[in-house]
């Protein structure tokens, strides 16, 4: 009896959890088909927001910009973060413990402070032009720590005799990296990239500070639309697209994995 009750409580708790995750998305989905521009009261069913969306070149441009920035950020932040994580784990040097602990600092510091600091840094100290260079460097600096963190976690579970075995069998350091270390780190590299891409794509605060003219990313564009435009409900439509795309992607990966498992 007790066990049964515990199981029921478990089910209820997880249902509530899912409700919190899915309810806003369902509401969003429904209201993206609402004819009322302000989106609070239901009027009638329409797909005009979706049509509008594809007829607004500014939105498409903002999407492309965000995708570009997120892609470049993901590549560099993952590479830098993975290398840093590897070094922090493998090599002993003075200050290693401090460095390891401070890795998460950029994530725990409030975003606005981080953004302000980056703005001062870019304009007063290193003179990096605002716009793409500043945005990308800023994004890399706040997302590389994620990759470091993920890599450190993975490193603890790797058998390091494998690298020694590779060297012993005649592979130099570079070949050992290519043939043994990177394949062993691949799950961490993949996990980092999957975390960093949306992290960069979604960022509003930091981007808002360091963006220049003509580098309005999607979150910035949506924000300005909320402030000035007469059809905030358009946001529902675009949001839904960006919720559905990753879900489809995850399902696709899941299905292809299930198939390869089934095949072998």
């Amino acid at each position, binding site marked *: 009896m007790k066990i049964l009750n515990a199981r029921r409580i478990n089910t209820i708790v997880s249902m509530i959890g899912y409700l919190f995750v899915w309810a806003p998305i369902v509401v969003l989905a429904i209201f993206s088909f609402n004819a009322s521009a302000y989106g609070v009261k239901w009027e009638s069913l329409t797909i005009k927001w979706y049509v509008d969306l594809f007829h607004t070149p500014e939105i498409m441009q903002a999407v492309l910009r965000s995708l570009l920035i997120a892609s470049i950020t993901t590549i560099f932040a993952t590479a830098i973060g993975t290398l840093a994580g590897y070094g922090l784990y493998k090599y002993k040097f003075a200050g290693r413990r401090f460095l390891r602990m401070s890795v998460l600092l950029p994530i725990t510091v409030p975003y606005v402070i981080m953004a302000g600091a980056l703005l001062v840094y870019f304009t007063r100290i290193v003179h990096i032009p605002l716009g793409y260079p500043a945005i990308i460097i800023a994004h890399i600096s706040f997302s590389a720590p994620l990759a470091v963190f993920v890599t450190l976690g993975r490193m603890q579970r790797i058998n390091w005799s494998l690298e020694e075995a590779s060297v*012993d*069998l005649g592979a130099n350091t570079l070949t050992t990296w290519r043939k043994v270390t990177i394949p062993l780190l691949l799950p961490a590299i993949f996990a980092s990239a999957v975390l960093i891409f949306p992290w960069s794509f979604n960022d509003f605060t930091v981007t808002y500070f360091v963006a220049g003219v003509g580098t309005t990313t999607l979150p910035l564009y949506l924000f300005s639309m909320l402030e000035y435009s007469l059809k905030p409900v358009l946001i529902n439509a675009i949001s839904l697209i960006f919720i559905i795309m990753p879900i489809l992607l995850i399902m696709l990966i899941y299905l292809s994995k299930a198939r390869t498992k089934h095949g072998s």
Partner: protein
Amino acid sequence: MQGEQDNICIELRNLVKMFPGVTAVNHVNLKVKDREVFSLLGPSGCGKTTILRIIAGLETADEGEVLIGGQVVNEVPPYRRDCNLVFQNLALFPHMTIGQNIAYGLERKRVAKNEIKKRVNEMLEFMSLEAMKDRYPVQLSGGQQQRIALARSLVLKPSCCCWMNPWRHWTEN
């Protein structure tokens, strides 16, 4: 007793290795001849593994010389030493099949493709593990894994092969 033409394969001269707090290897001298089977015995922690790791080049000696085939190899990096280890934990590459594991060293030496194939197959046959070629290490028993680890070193025909704790998996069957 043996004649002059007996080649010395491995020679250690006054080898010393210190770790913080312990002297793991204290002035060791030894000579191993070609085709000789030489065993290092001793209580746990007396420095057997450390000696083998120094011979393979994975640790550097603090004092003394390591000679392989008559040449001092102290400064030679491990990937150029004609000596292979069979690790205590075997260290088979988990992301490669058995065939790829055995071929790894030959590929690094840039041996021709069909020659690699031939030697890998010979080795698998010798170890009577032909059926395992396309399996991954986790799908093998402890004893089979050990034979693969040995095969991976022997396929390179090194002038010496150092085997750590050879009886570890033997006791299982």
